């Protein structure tokens, strides 16, 4: 279990794609549990892990006022939108092939397969206050996908499936490429801020 605070900085993105002009602060609680302590009769479930998160997103401004001009009449218009406080919640279920191989059953599968972590993730958002213009409907996506763990990098790919029409009308895809800087350059950019550099390491042997 851990807690964190994320800050979405305002005025750092294009308004045309919905980036806001104000900060959003989100204290978040993270929880996770691996099933490695299950008895032998349930050993095939040991590689399963579940994670969860609950965050409370607090916009730095309660409302946003937009001034414009009515294209038909030419009259000035004022549009006020209330920025809701939002409960961000979700979780994952994942199955670690590396753990299966090293702690449950070595199936003798190719190394490429043993590096996969299939997962399903859910990310939901529920406006809970200051909802005059946003409504309170929960939106979100269910995201099946996988991680593939390499020696110096990791790839993640997920489909984004909207849970309702308000969340979207098409299936999307998100991908991530994550570099292990402490393995790639342990004495340079990957060096610990405090303490000496460590020997590069990975969950898998290097050839």
């Amino acid at each position: 279990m851990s807690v964190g605070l994320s800050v979405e900085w305002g005025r750092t993105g294009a308004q045309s794609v919905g980036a806001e002009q104000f900060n959003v602060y989100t204290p978040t609680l993270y929880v996770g549990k691996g099933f490695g302590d299950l008895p032998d009769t349930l050993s095939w479930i040991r590689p399963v892990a579940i994670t969860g998160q609950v965050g409370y997103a607090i916009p730095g401004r309660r409302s946003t006022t937009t001034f414009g001009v009515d294209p038909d009449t030419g009259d000035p218009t004022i549009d006020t939108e209330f920025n809701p406080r939002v409960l961000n919640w979700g979780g994952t279920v994942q199955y670690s092939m590396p753990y299966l191989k090293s702690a449950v059953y070595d199936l003798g599968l190719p190394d490429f397969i043993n590096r996969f972590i299939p997962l399903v993730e859910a990310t939901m958002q529920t406006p809970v206050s200051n909802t005059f213009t946003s409504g309170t409907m929960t939106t979100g996506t269910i995201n099946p996908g996988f991680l593939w763990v390499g020696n110096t990098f990791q790839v993640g790919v997920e489909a984004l499936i909207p849970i309702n029409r308000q969340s979207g009308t098409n299936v999307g895809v998100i991908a991530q490429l994550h570099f292990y800087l402490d393995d790639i350059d342990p004495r340079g950019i990957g060096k610990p801020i405090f303490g000496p550099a460590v020997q590069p390491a990975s969950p898998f042997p290097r050839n």
Partner: protein
Amino acid sequence: MRNSAIVLAIPLLVLLATGEASAHAFLDHAEPRVGNTVAAAPREVTLWFTQKLEPAFSTITVTNSAGQRVDTGKARVSGSQMTIAVRPGGAGTYHVTWRVLSVDTHTTDGSFSFQVGK
């Protein structure tokens, strides 16, 4: 919906990324293989790790179905490989528990089972 930027949470992919990357010695494979069945009790158990080990602080324990230790107590370490001799035993489930210190000073541990003669 303009305020969608507020309610759009970033999927956890980024958070999931950190779990496997830390610099530790992980068990790569073992002989007898993890979870597998062998016809006769092995004379020794060998583990291969993903990093070189510090011999003085790396141990293996092997127990039989009755929970009795059947290893000889002193593991041999060579680089990233660790081996321990096992006294002759019968059929059943054997449990291997390991704890190692890698040369980068991180300690890891784990366990697995294998079957004999079933």
